[in-house]
């Protein structure tokens, strides 16, 4: 056998934690013959992947339960491609049935409201309790509506954020498709950190594609950004000048001076510089970890969950792992690809923790593809390892400006292949 046994087994972990204490605190699943219970909250790119890799790798030795409120999952990734008219809504919506039946995962359909960490149970909205030996939190994001004065959950029914895929995405598409030439769109981009760093700018590209395809020449898309720079900025700005000249205007804080308030009924965004008016407002507010993370007491004062970079284990509770957008994953962006990658590290470490399976040194990766115009795709990617107490980028690449059309087309086709790949990796 190779000499690559560098992972930490549960026995070694016991030694690290103090062997005596570990024996005294021997949990029920080691005394009884019932399989240890792993409960996952949230069925997105992180949670669905974790459920599958836990169940698949343990081959019946773990009792895996997925708590998810919805019967289907609409992906945030590729929701801009739907917005651009390249896909229908059905093609970005997926069922949990295959995942549940293929791997013997129990699905509890409902909302998790609280976590009793002493009793190791999840309290559901209906009052029932789901017991766990290890808990994986993959709740994604909640929107901090109040970060944009005047914005709220109710206001989002008029001025959609569409930053959690589903009805909001369909609303934004319907509103976009209903615009007449000369009517403007004002987008308020979110502050860091937020889900999908290139997402707002790919979205502006896709909205411009729709307007341009209809022959519109007078409508504009104005992006009011609280950030001084943004992901893939050079690539997007090159694409906007090439395909949508004069249509997309981006203003950073040095120009607009600060976002003061929005009035969704009047279609106005007020900044220090000026008031911007649009027939369609797309307000993407600040974000934090999904509510269950704070309810469980594993989020910090900024609303995100600190984790151990080597395992995705919460630094606040060793029976809890936090993956995906909710976690503070160092250099990794909040993306479906990142969540999927983190889920595999967590699943491996939980199996090592509960079943004496091997754990290897964690490796993480991410690639974010963006579509600027038909057949013009760009990408940014990196590999990460635990280093200096955080998940640290160790290698990276980004598409270059002035790439030839064939490469950009291949990049888009690769993104479609990735979409099909990650969906298969999550759900089948």
């Amino acid at each position, binding site marked *: 056998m190779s000499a690559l046994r560098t992972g930490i087994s549960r026995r070694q972990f016991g030694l690290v934690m103090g062997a005596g204490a570990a024996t005294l605190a021997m949990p029920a699943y080691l005394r009884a013959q019932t399989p240890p219970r792993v409960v996952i909250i949230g069925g997105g790119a992180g949670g669905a992947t974790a459920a599958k890799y836990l169940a698949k790798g343990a081959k019946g030795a773990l009792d895996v339960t997925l708590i998810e409120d919805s019967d289907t999952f609409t992906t945030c990734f590729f929701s801009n491609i739907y917005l651009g008219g390249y896909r229908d809504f059905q093609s970005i919506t997926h069922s949990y049935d295959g995942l549940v039946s293929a791997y013997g995962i129990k699905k509890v359909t409902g909302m998790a409201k609280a976590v009793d960490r002493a009793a190791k149970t999840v309290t559901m909205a209906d009052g029932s309790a789901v017991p766990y030996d290890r808990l994986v939190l993959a709740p994604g994001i909640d929107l901090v509506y109040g970060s944009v004065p005047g914005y709220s959950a109710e206001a989002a029914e008029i001025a959609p954020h569409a930053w959690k895929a589903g009805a909001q995405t369909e609303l934004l598409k319907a509103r976009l498709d209903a615009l007449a030439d000369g009517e403007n769109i004002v987008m308020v981009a979110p502050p860091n950190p937020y889900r999908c760093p290139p997402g707002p700018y790919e979205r502006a590209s896709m909205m411009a594609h729709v307007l341009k395809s209809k022959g519109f020449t007078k409508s504009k898309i104005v992006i009011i950004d609280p950030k001084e720079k943004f992901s893939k900025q050079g690539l997007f700005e090159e694409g906007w000048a090439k395909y949508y000249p004069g249509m997309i205007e981006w203003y950073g804080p040095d120009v607009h001076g600060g976002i003061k308030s929005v009035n969704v009924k009047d279609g106005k965004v007020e900044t220090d510089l000026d008031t911007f008016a649009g027939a369609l407002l797309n307000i993407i507010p600040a974000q934090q970890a999904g509510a269950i993370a704070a309810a469980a007491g594993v989020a910090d004062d900024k609303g995100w969950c600190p984790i151990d970079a080597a395992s995705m284990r919460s630094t606040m509770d060793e029976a809890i792992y936090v993956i995906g957008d909710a976690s503070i994953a160092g250099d990794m962006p909040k993306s479906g690809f990142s969540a999927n990658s983190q889920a595999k590290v967590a699943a491996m470490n939980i199996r090592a923790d509960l079943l004496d399976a091997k754990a290897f040194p964690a490796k993480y990766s991410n690639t974010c593809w963006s579509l600027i115009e038909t057949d013009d795709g760009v990408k940014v990617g990196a590999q990460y390892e635990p280093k200096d107490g955080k998940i640290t980028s160790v*290698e990276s690449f980004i598409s270059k400006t002035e790439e030839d059309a064939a490469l950009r087309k291949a990049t888009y086709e690769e993104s*479609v292949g990735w979409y099909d790949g990650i969906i298969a990796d999550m759900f*089948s």
Partner: protein
Amino acid sequence: MTKGMGNASGKTAVAALALTVVLGRVPAFASDPASDLTKQALEARQATTRVLSLDADPELGAYLGGECATCHQQAGATSGIPPIRALPVDYIVRALVEYRLGMRDNNVMKLMSVRLKDEEIAALAAYFSSFPE
């Protein structure tokens, strides 16, 4: 204790390659400093030989293979990204070695390969070749 790289025909091919190296033909190319491509090709061959001689750890292969499954569908379906399940061991090793050396173009694959150790390439190749065709 699985010997994942026990591919008899692969080892024969490797032996023939090793003989060529011993006879001095490839090192002659390598001694030409202007010929980076040839040097790289030699490096690729040597690394492939080295990796093919290793025992593969199936558990490591299964873990690392999860990273590939994000894009390459394990069922083998293809759309924009080629399937890799059930490819021959020596093909996978050679491809990963060439990505690691920067001899192949795709920047996602270069990213995924550039830090792979020989043992990790061996484990990945054994893992993916073990899928039924």
